[in-house]
């Protein structure tokens, strides 16, 4: 990933955009944090929030006119937060003592004329930057006008404390300054390097200011420049008339302009974020209960409890739309903008640990984030792109996807692959393509569907068993995907490129992307046409679970609902259904790369309704069953398995069984329909095993297949390379059929072998390690 690509990704995620209140505030006071601290009763914390951005907080905090209220999102659900009253409540508490930061010293001298809010704000900013600041106040004392104007709201002690703190910054004060004398400004400019006019404390007449159409003086914000070089001014009206917070902000902006001007930098460049700006932060008000403002019992403002209550109304605006619906995004503790940065860093690492590998490989690539994101951030595109890059550079952890890729190889191999015309036909008008996992999960239904299609459709229905390459697609293994698709296409073309009847939406998605020339329709449409009878299940409405690969295919979702609903099956919609549906944890190979998370995902999914679920993807159904959720596959309604009383309770076949089911399906179909013998089983496949349920469960968890164990025992028995335990009589042997080494502890029993334990590792003992 290049840095500009990272920037593009980052800019898509708006979570770090300013909240509406802070964006609306000329000073960008972080009212969201102020509310959070206040709601927690943390007055020192609330003070710190004000101290970060608010000049003269002991004064401004009492007289702020809070223009932020106009844009407060709470205003759309009740009334805007009374930020001005919360600020007042906060500054009523003791101001935390701060060690003054050491001030650099600059030689330039600056005159601030007038000590209104803008002048004091500018003086403080400039003194903190190290300038030699002198305030020229026409009155008898510093801030005389301010003191008189706000006597009712601002106690003398509060103002005096702020002034003391300013004077500690070595600001000099000249009172009774003859500001009205002719030539005052000229004399000032001769004796100093820059001037700031605090017009909120001066008569604006007589100063070198441009005039607006109404004849009133202007100094356009945020640069605050006057018509005279080196003279900046503030304390003029804001957009809606005079406003204390605007006056203070103009002081800050004017100080920044003076600083730039003195350093030879353009005062007007890149000032977009000074003053109110637009924010892109999105806040959903869905489910937010409207609440009115807390009314203070006393006219002067809130007491602590009232303030805490009012602050608790704050929505704490965050977007996090994707994180709210995705356990994967939630589980890594941040949000896409941060993830993009972590992934970028992961890709840029030369030496050291790549800490984002798990983040990259855990995404199910289901695309729900993009669907809910107001800016269409597609985590799946980011993760998939990076996975491909990792594979290309040889940096993909081998263990991340290997198990699924081996399963794909199995489906592409002799034991499962099949492509045939209907018996007695030389051509296929259609081709049934059930997909590998339906065959792995419910082989008898594949056979029943195929029988039905052959009997109902004209022109011959071919059958193809293979793998579409989805695991390679998800793993970012482009070369493996290309070769899987090539093999698939060869088989399809040999049958005359017939249109497909699809049972799996993941296969359908892969073909849509990579083999767009393949014409496909869903089995459900065909079943709707053939008028297949179905029996509604006894226990009530079923909760509909759409596979994530149908997210953008409302037609498929509707067809399934239609064909099932027509038979009187009542359906309940899940909160996250149709285009908002969730992945079962298999997509994107999440369950291979991060089994714990995948388990969490499907457990949560199963918890969304008490009803039995109805899925139409074999993997979704089986994963629900794995976590004990009662679930049906739509085919259970059309083609019930004879003798199966409660299909919703059918356990999910384990990894080994899924292979066994596929191999047996092919062998039986070949024998029964085409009168052909399946290729002979390899010798090791004939090793008979006895496996207790707890050992089978352990193997399942460790992803050790029966075939892996057969290989170990076959090799050990043939070569004699095994260990023996004198007390237990157990044998222990290992074999490395691919990049993993399998160990099996076993004893001969009858014609076969009892398996006591099995485990695996990937590290290899170097050969030639003989003593």
């Amino acid at each position, binding site marked *: 990933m290049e840095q500009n690509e990272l920037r593009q990704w980052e800019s898509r995620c708006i979570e770090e955009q300013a909240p509406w209140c802070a964006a609306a505030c000329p000073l960008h006071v972080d009212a969201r944090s102020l509310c959070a601290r206040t709601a927690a009763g943390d007055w020192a914390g609330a003070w710190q929030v004000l101290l970060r951005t608010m000049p003269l907080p002991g004064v401004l905090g009492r007289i702020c006119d809070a223009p932020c209220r106009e844009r407060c999102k709470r205003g759309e659900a009740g009334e805007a937060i009374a930020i001005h009253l919360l600020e007042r409540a906060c500054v009523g508490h003791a101001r935390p003592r701060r060690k003054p930061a050491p001030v650099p010293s600059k030689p330039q001298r600056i005159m601030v004329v007038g000590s209104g809010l803008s002048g004091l704000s500018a003086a403080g900013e400039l003194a903190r930057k190290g300038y030699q600041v002198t305030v020229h106040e026409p009155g008898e004392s510093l801030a005389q006008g301010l003191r008189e104007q706000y006597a009712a709201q601002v106690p003398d002690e509060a103002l005096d404390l702020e002034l003391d703190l300013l004077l500690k910054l070595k600001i000099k004060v000249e009172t009774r300054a003859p500001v009205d004398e002719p030539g005052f400004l000229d004399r000032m400019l001769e004796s100093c390097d820059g001037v700031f006019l605090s017009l909120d404390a001066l008569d604006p007449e007589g100063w070198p200011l441009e005039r607006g159409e109404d004849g009133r003086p202007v100094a356009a914000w945020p640069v605050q420049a006057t018509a005279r070089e080196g003279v900046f001014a503030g304390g003029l009206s804001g957009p809606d008339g005079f406003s204390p917070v605007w006056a203070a902000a103009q002081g800050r902006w004017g100080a920044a302009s003076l600083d730039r001007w003195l350093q030879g930098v353009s005062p007007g460049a890149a000032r977009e974020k000074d003053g109110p700006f637009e924010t892109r932060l999105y806040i959903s008000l869905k489910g937010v209960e409207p609440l009115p403002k807390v009314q203070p019992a006393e006219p002067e403002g809130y007491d602590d409890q009232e303030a805490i209550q009012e602050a608790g109304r704050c929505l704490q605006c965050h977007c996090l739309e994707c994180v709210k619906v995705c356990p994967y995004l939630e589980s890594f503790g941040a949000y896409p903008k941060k993830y993009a940065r972590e992934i970028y860093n992961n890709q840029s690492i030369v030496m050291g*640990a790549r800490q984002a590998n798990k983040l990259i490989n855990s995404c199910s690539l289901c695309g729900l984030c993009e669907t809910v994101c107001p800016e269409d951030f597609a985590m799946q595109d980011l993760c998939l792109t990076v996975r491909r890059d990792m594979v290309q550079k040889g940096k993909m*952890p*081998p*263990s991340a996807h290997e198990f699924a890729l081996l399963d794909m190889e199995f489906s592409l191999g002799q034991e499962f692959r099949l492509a045939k015309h209907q018996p007695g036909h030389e051509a296929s008008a259609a081709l049934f393509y059930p997909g590998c996992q339906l065959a792995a999960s419910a082989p008898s239904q594949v056979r029943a569907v195929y029988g039905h299609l052959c009997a109902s459709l004209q022109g011959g229905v071919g059958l193809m068993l293979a793998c579409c390459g989805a695991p390679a697609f998800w793993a970012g293994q482009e070369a493996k995907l290309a070769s899987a698709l090539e093999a698939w296409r060869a088989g399809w073309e040999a049958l005359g490129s017939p249109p497909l009847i699809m049972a799996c939406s993941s296969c359908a998605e892969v073909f849509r992307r990579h083999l767009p020339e393949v014409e496909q329709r869903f089995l459900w449409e065909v079943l709707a046409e053939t008028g297949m009878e179905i029996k509604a299940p006894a226990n009530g409405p079923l909760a509909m679970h759409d596979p994530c690969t149908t997210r953008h295919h409302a037609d498929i979702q509707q067809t399934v609902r239609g064909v099932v609903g027509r038979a009187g099956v009542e359906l309940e919609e899940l909160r996250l259904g149709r285009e908002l549906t969730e992945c079962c944890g298999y997509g994107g190979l999440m369950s291979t790369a991060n089994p714990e998370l995948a388990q969490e995902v499907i457990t949560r999914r199963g918890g969304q309704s008490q009803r039995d679920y109805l899925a139409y993807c074999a993997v979704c159904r089986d994963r629900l069953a794995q976590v004990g959720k009662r679930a049906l596959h739509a085919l259970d309604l059309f083609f019930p398995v004879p003798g199966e009383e409660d299909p919703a309770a059918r356990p999910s076949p384990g990894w080994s069984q899924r292979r066994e089911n596929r191999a047996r399906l092919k062998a039986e179909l070949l024998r029964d329909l085409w009168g052909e013998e399946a290729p002979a089983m390899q010798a090791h496949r004939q090793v008979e095993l006895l496996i207790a349920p707890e050992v089978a469960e352990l193997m399942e968890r460790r992803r050790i297949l029966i075939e892996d164990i057969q290989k170990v025992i076959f090799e050990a028995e043939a070569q004699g*390379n095994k260990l023996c335990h004198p007390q237990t009589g157990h044998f222990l042997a290992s074999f490395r059929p691919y990049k993993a080494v399998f*160990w099996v502890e076993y004893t001969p029993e009858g014609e076969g072998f009892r398996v006591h334990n099995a485990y695996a590792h990937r590290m290899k*003992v*170097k050969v030639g*390690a003989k*003593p």
Partner: protein
Amino acid sequence: MSMNTENIRPGDLEWTCCNCGRKLEPAPVVVEYLGNEFTAELPRCPSCGLVMITEELALGKMAEVEHILEDK
């Protein structure tokens, strides 16, 4: 990264090699993953060199090291 004698438990050395009939003994063994080699003390047949990796080692220390190397 070390995989030393702490990997060997007394019980591990009770296993005997079926081909040679000899008890396993601790010996330095070179193991390799993703091009990285380490020497570890592991139970080994003193006669034919057959090495035993215990379940504890495979799922513990070894898995940990494999993971670190995969993320390098």
